[in-house]
């Protein structure tokens, strides 16, 4: 029920915040989406869309940073003498 899918904002239009609408591209499939809760979204941004509403603008810098850290996970741990002394996993 609470699934939300990331897509890229194509355009946003409208003046009345309650009726702010736009189009979002999901890997080539475009859907009309309400931007009532994310009026700050700009074309090119990624938004999480749930049941026809853009709920949040995805922080791409934060996303990249997290992924970069995760891709290095294990290497740092393996190189650290402190963790080398840890007991092996059960």
């Amino acid at each position: 029920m609470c699934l939300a899918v990331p897509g890229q904002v194509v355009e946003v239009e409208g003046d009345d915040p309650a009726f702010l609408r736009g189009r979002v591209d999901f890997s080539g499939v475009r859907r009309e989406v309400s931007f009532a809760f994310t009026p700050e979204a700009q074309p090119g941004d990624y938004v999480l869309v749930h049941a026809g509403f853009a709920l949040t603008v995805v922080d791409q810098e934060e996303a990249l940073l997290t992924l970069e850290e995760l891709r290095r996970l294990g290497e740092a741990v393996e190189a650290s003498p402190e963790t080398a002394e840890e007991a092996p996993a059960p």
Partner: protein
Amino acid sequence: MKLVDEYRDSDVVARLSAGIRRTATRPWTLMEICGGQTHSIVKNGLEALLPPGIELVHGPGCPVCVTPAELIDAAVALAARPEVIFTSYGDMLRVPGSRGRAEGPAALLDARAAGADVRVVYSALDAVQIAAANPGRQVVFFAVGFETTAPGHALAVVQAEALELENFSILVAHVLVPPAIDALLGSPECRVQALLAPGHVCTIEGSAEYARLSARWKVPIVVTGFEPVDLMEGILMAVRQLEAGQARLENQYSRAVRADGNAAARAAVDRVFEVTDRPWRGLGLIANSGLALREAYRRFDAVARFGAGPEPVQDDGACISGLILQGLKKPRECPAFATLCTPEQPLGAPMVSSEGACAAYYHYGRKV
């Protein structure tokens, strides 16, 4: 798909799996709250990537599963009225109410087969448009969901008001996550030691309430996303806290969740809805755990409009969904699982909903 594929990277998942194995020195029991997370865990076989002592139990975060049988009965009764176009998300259609099929339509799908005008919508705003296009009919929308879905339903009511639609109403079945977590962690039977909090609920609500829950019950809570990398990282963060004897709030899903959530969405909810006590199917009445329309918007309440309120009913005894939703039993521990109870002939809602724990085990996890 960008921002999806990266979080399904099997190399990163393997690194996280190794990290959890290195970190865990003893058994721990974690609960993921959201049914979407349960689905992703079972579908992607993540439990097999955890060391034997790390157990995941599945929480009550499936709105379809916890919608009381009497509200399904009320929905079926409303749908049967000739003037009504009943609109709903697709996953509510097969959920049985309290009646056996011999007594008449049990689920909305049965009502549709019997001639009712039941339509599946993708968004609550689609239901508003159906109302605008059909001034001679009454359009009822089944407003089911958690905090993630409530803002859209609030906006549908705001739009109906702005468009002066006299033929739009909603049947409200809204529930809130924190009161259910509070009830769960406060139960003497509770064996959950850490929680993965529902990422998309927190895009709206922020994380402050979960920080309070973490402090109150002294359990680590990690706001977590939905892809395999998200879930494995959330588990690793929770296990690190458990091993270090910590209990605080962390945010794994920082690309989507800000501490203060989405103020515009919450303002829409506050304008239209107020907090109320709600019964949860399988769990019973939980104080302040749901939403109802405020007095100023009560004319959009389908129960008020049609005078067809839900009547309390007794639930079927064979289904142990209450124990499943509290994480006290796994679907395979139910004697009816995959025998008397299947997605085609469900005894309870967790077998119907695509996010119900029973359906997830039935579709993906039967051999695990």
